[in-house]
């Protein structure tokens, strides 16, 4: 059982991290994207997943049974190399459906104090 009291839990990384061109370019190559002047929309997931894992630590999540249920992104401004970003992760809901446990998490990504991207993930722990 996932601990329902983690709903609302928010984790913020206080130290900005910098996105480098090498990471964007290698991601673009892996997905066949020819334009690496901006990060592709799904690139964001490569660094938010660690924040989600941190949010769900000690919450009774069986990671060996975890699958990705859905994913969406809202992008006000795309990421580019040299961006210094901060990231917050919030647990939005925990629920059960069809014998599975579902946890929804949101990431808020800021550049220079301005929110540029939000991302929502539903992670499913198969029952």
């Amino acid at each position, binding site marked *: 059982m996932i601990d329902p009291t983690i709903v609302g839990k928010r984790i913020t990384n206080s130290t900005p991290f910098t996105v480098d061109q090498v*990471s964007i370019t*290698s*991601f673009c*190559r*892996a*997905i*066949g*994207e*020819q*334009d690496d*002047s*901006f*990060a*592709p*929309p*799904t690139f964001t*997931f*490569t660094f938010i*997943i660690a924040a989600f894992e941190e949010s769900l630590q000690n919450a009774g999540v069986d990671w*060996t049974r975890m*699958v*990705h*249920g*859905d*994913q*969406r*992104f*809202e*992008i*006000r401004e*795309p990421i580019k190399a040299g961006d210094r970003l901060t990231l917050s992760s919030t647990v939005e809901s925990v629920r059960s459906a069809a014998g599975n446990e579902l946890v929804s998490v949101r990431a808020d990504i800021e550049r220079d104090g301005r929110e540029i991207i939000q991302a*929502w993930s539903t992670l499913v722990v198969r029952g």
Partner: protein
Amino acid sequence: MNFTVGEVLPNRTFSIDRRALKAYADASGDQNPIHQDEAFAKSVGLPNVIAHGMFTLALGGTYISDLIGGPSKIRKFGARFTKPVVVPADEPAQVEFSGTVASIENGIATIELTALHGDQKVLGMAKAEIVID
């Protein structure tokens, strides 16, 4: 780019082999063995190695990006992961993307995406909203 509501966009098929999965694992940092190790994948009840759902979604992003001239105009993007894409060692998996322009409003076009692996839809409610000039 000039879209009209109801327009059907040209489809495109991506071929996913084990090497592509390794490249995606390295670029994304997702080294879960179900995407690379056949014995492990089978030990947890999967038919074989499966592609990362995020890899399939990323290919959908590439499909859209190529149609609109780069990824920077994508404002919303997402999908449900409805079925796994199974990738046998000796046979690359094919995923065919197609799209329809569902609406155009205030300079934003909404494209509904379909991703087919064989006759199965591997993404559900897949949508992209893009800025049009």
